[in-house]
């Protein structure tokens, strides 16, 4: 076997993949052969590094150099300089926006400093299509030891003591969930992995499946053993082709190595996994809807009880866990519950992966210990607000989460604190908004997602959310009344109180939390007919300052609806009735004479 002196790791996550990381990998391989370095340098495609903002990422080892925004054309230089001459390619290193210094080791970058990667431990480290790299990283060791100890209840106790809670959103204790399913005797049970990631912007489950599929397989087998299931099902979105591809490879390899199939590790335990494809319905992330969808029924939730642990897939006891939850399981077993429970807050242990997005410098996938504050996430990891703007709010928990303001910045993030603050953990979307975001529009944006994705089963969600969205639309168009605000608030409360499933019950959160935290902004829209953030088109007014206007006629000529009048070299005027607020005049004016009110 070749004794490589260098490893080049190239991110093969969907984001970097889209910006030609496959081509980069190919170029490296070619150049390495050309330079006769194939015995010294190993080129590896890995899962996501998380720092998607700066992708494609190439990491050089053993010196841990982190190259960002690499193009296929850069490969030659990297090999020539970094490997042959031992000099780092400065221009490809991360430039710290504060110190303006190039950082070569990702550990010294603000983005990674505060992170603790447990669920993502292998993402960006191993080749996800090579089971041997997973095995080398203690892969399947947890499964082996669980099977050797042959004490399913004991393993469940470990998870309970570790304090692992479901990472899909609701935060139900995983060990307890397994125990409930274990207690129900049946000839067949099912261990189901929920990979129907649907929150807009969230992609942690996809990244885990793309970067470390074996950890999910191993955890499912452990779970199967604990609850007494010999069948595993992964319900995965059909829109995740790369994750499906890697998962399939991983399952095949695991079977080949005897880690799936009959008599695993020579024991009586047999377990195998099948994939089921979801058609991209958000509601199918809800476990009963997911199960119905797998059964070929309409993907809509049913009332619980019966819980899946009693009556799940094909009416058999079933356990549904999310991808990220599974990814934590093998590590907990390998390192012990004491280690895991030492991380995090009192009631939320371990770490949580967040998809950081919005008006923030470092967009990407991060994993931080529970209890990290929003401020640390936004300012240290996220590198602060883009373009030096002011922070306004952060939206957590996906479309059914809530918007949190500055006063919550120092709140340690965990399940209970987020709920207390009027939002939720959800699957871990985190969208940062700056001062130019109109909170009414933000609420409407999220609500519209729910309106689209509601299954339509219960009336509050089917009709109520539509009505809320219509009222919000009315407000952003300047036609809202104070009575509308009252009605909106009542609707939001009633929907939360009466909807059938988690989706419906949390759907009013964006409205409720923005109303709680930005009431003045709502009132401004309704009473003053103004959008303080200047986002609502209908409430904008373009005005020409007669002092500054030189009468150059540029605006009048550019106006698509002929709403600007005036004579040459005289101040012009905008006919507000005719104005469609397209902003063309604003852009055309060379004298800053046009302002938005």
């Amino acid at each position: 076997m070749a004794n490589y002196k260098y490893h080049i790791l190239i991110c093969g996550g969907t984001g970097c993949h889209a910006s030609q990381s496959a081509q980069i990998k190919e170029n490296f391989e070619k150049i390495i052969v050309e330079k006769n370095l194939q015995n010294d340098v190993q080129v590896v495609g890995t899962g996501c590094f998380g720092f998607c903002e700066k992708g494609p990422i190439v990491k050089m080892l053993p010196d841990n150099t982190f190259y960002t925004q690499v193009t296929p054309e850069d490969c030659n230089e990297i090999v020539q300089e970094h490997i042959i001459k031992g000099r780092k390619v400065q221009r490809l290193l991360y430039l710290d926006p504060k110190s303006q210094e190039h950082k070569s080791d990702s550990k010294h970058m603000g983005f990674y400093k505060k992170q603790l990667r447990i669920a993502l431990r292998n993402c960006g480290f191993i080749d996800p299509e090579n089971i041997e790299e997973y095995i080398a990283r203690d892969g399947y060791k947890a499964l082996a030891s669980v099977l050797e100890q042959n004490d399913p209840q004991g393993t469940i106790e470990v998870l309970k003591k570790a304090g692992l809670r479901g990472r899909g959103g609701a935060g139900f204790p995983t060990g307890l969930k397994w125990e409930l399913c274990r207690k129900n005797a049946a000839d067949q049970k099912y261990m189901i992995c929920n990979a129907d990631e649907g929150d807009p912007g969230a992609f942690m489950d996809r990244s885990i499946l793309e970067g470390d599929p074996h950890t999910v397989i191993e955890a499912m087998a452990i779970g199967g053993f604990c609850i007494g299931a010999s069948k595993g099902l992964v319900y995965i979105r059909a829109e995740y082709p790369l994750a499906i591809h890697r998962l399939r490879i991983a399952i095949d390899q695991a079977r080949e190595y005897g880690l799936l199939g009959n008599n695993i590790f020579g024991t009586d335990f047999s377990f195998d996994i099948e994939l089921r494809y979801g058609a991209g319905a958000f509601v199918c992330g809800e476990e009963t809807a997911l199960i119905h969808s797998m059964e070929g029924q309409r993907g809509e939730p049913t009332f619980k009880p019966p819980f899946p642990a009693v009556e799940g897939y094909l009416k058999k006891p079933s356990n549904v866990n999310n991808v990220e939850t599974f990814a934590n399981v093998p590590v907990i077993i390998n390192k012990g519950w004491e280690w895991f429970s030492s991380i995090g807050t009192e009631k939320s242990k371990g770490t949580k992966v967040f998809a950081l997005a919005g008006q923030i410098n470092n967009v990407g996938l991060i994993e931080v210990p529970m209890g990290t504050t929003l401020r640390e996430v936004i300012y240290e990891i996220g590198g602060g607000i883009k373009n030096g703007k002011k922070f306004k709010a952060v939206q957590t928990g996906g479309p059914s989460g809530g918007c949190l303001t500055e006063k919550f910045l120092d709140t340690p993030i965990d399940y209970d604190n987020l709920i207390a603050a009027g939002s939720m953990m959800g699957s871990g979307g985190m969208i940062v908004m700056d001062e130019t975001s109109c909170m009414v529009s933000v609420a409407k944006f999220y609500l519209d997602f729910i309106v689209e994705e509601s299954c339509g089963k219960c009336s509050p969600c089917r009709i109520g959310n539509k009505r809320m969205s219509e009222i919000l639309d009315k407000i952003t168009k300047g036609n809202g009344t104070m009575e509308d605000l009252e009605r909106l608030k009542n609707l939001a409360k009633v929907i939360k109180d009466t909807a059938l499933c988690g989706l419906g019950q949390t759907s009013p959160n964006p409205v409720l939390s923005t109303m709680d935290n930005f009431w003045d902004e709502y009132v401004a829209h309704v009473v003053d007919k103004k959008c303080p953030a200047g986002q609502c088109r209908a409430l904008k007014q373009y005005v020409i300052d007669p002092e500054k206007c030189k009468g150059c006629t540029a605006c009048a000529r550019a106006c698509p609806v002929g709403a600007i009048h005036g004579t040459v070299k005289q101040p012009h005027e905008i006919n507000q009735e005719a104005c469609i607020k397209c902003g063309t005049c604003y852009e055309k004016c060379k004298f800053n004479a046009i302002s938005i009110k």
Partner: protein
Amino acid sequence: MDTVKLTIDNREVEVPRGTTILKAAQSIGINIPTLCHFEVDNLGIHNKPGACRICVVEVVGRRNLAPACVTECMPDMIVRTNSMRVINARRTVLELILSDHPNDCLQCAKNGNCELQKLAIRLGVRENPYNGEEHAQSTYQLEVSPSIIRDMNKCVMCRRCETMCNQMQTVGALSAIERGFPAVISTAFNQHLELSPCTFCGQCVAVCPVGALTEVDHTSKVIRAITDEKKTTVVQVAPAVRVALGEEFGMKPGSIVTGKLTAALKALGFDYVFDTDWSADLTIMEEGTELIGRLTKFLAGDKSVHLPILTSCCPAWVNFFEHQFPDMEDLPSTAKSPQQMFGAIAKSYFAEKIGVKREDMVCVSVMPCLAKKYECGRDEFKVNGNPDVDYSISTRELARLIKMANIDFNSLPEEKFDSPLGESTGAGVIFGTTGGVIEAAVRTAYEVITKKPLPKIDFEELRGLEGVRSATIDVDGLKLNIGIAHGLHNARKLLEDIKAGRSHFHAIEIMACPGGCIDGGGQPLHHGNQEIIKARWEAIYRADREMPIRKSHENPSIQAIYKEFLGEPCGHKSHELLHTNYFDKQTTVVVDVEK
């Protein structure tokens, strides 16, 4: 029994474990309003999707309100069904439902009989807060099929029709499509009902709380026919109508209104008022003879004869096997249904007798059924394009006609059916409920085979409301294995058994509707009250007992028609007029799915 104690509105109540809050509350007289919930225990109908959220109640200690219809009582639960939080939620939800419902109550077929309307009255809804132009209503294409009108703009997504169509009938014509606000109940690929596997049983219509699913109304056509002086109008009334029509006029469920019904039809101006019971007797002669013939050959070892023989008087059931089991079309009796036998005789034998040309005769049927509307339009039941039965109207439509004509039904003096197609027996009456057809057949077959009088006319072992029943009748040493199914999911079970060679039956009676015709898709709406079903069922057997003649072959008018017109049962003329054949109507939808 394992029970739980809980408190509802400050009152303690003890109920069996597994009881829902809704039922526990009902047991102490607290009537929690519902909309989507629909259960008829004695017919095995259960629709409780927990979807409308009207029945929400407060359970102390729970974060959200709980739907009473699906939440099970737990020990020491404290439930509040009428706190202001509950009332506000309930009313807000109802306002939402109303906001996506057309306000055309005045023209709606369900006006006055609509569960949503009643709910709006009950919760005192006086305004629609969502009537601004910014508020949309979901709109769908109105669809008119031969039996059923689907006006999905009125749909409240209670899913009752879906439950009936899929769980009860296993037809699978209707299910939810789309999601979110546009979500609605429809056929696969939104195809026309006639292209779907729909059997037109009308059970969806029977349970629809609003006007989304209604029958095709033929009252105007009937009125025009009566007013047309050139036409001779002949009307026939199905057995189950007489035990249900009274409900429409405030009578006690189970009232037998045969005499008033006849009087009302005469008052409406029909020229001849006849009874489908008469043709039911005729059906027994034909079908019974066919059974005896097939049975004799079968027992003699004739391999070309297949048993069991399946009854064929239910048109929805005929549609069902044509769609779902076309390869078994040699099993059902070839005898036409009583409605069609009547039409065929009325427009031949009777028309000749009174000297009216077939084209000048309009034959109307009053049926508890919506599939009959479809049936009378089938091409094989027409002569030169002229149908044997022109219009089939439901019990509900007849009630509408009577009300429209300002007839005081309750005080009408009773009248008798006209002769000769109005004379009937108790055997004809029991066609109206599950088990009745086969009992009528056995009464006749027994005497025909044994040439001995029946020791006991009432075959209690064939009666009941259980979904699948079976009995072995000793016909003088010949053990006749009889199966009975009502509700098409039960029929499916028996058919699957036959297919798999597990069936030991010689004859099976199948009725598409749960309960048989007494709960047909065209009957007065029972709104889930199972006492009504039970009362109708008892009334059918009471009417049978009150008949002087109770065996079809003893009907003198039937005996006469064989003598003077038909010759013998299953003879040449019978075959021409009273028997039919079946078609393969399997629905195949070819979907091109890329692998």
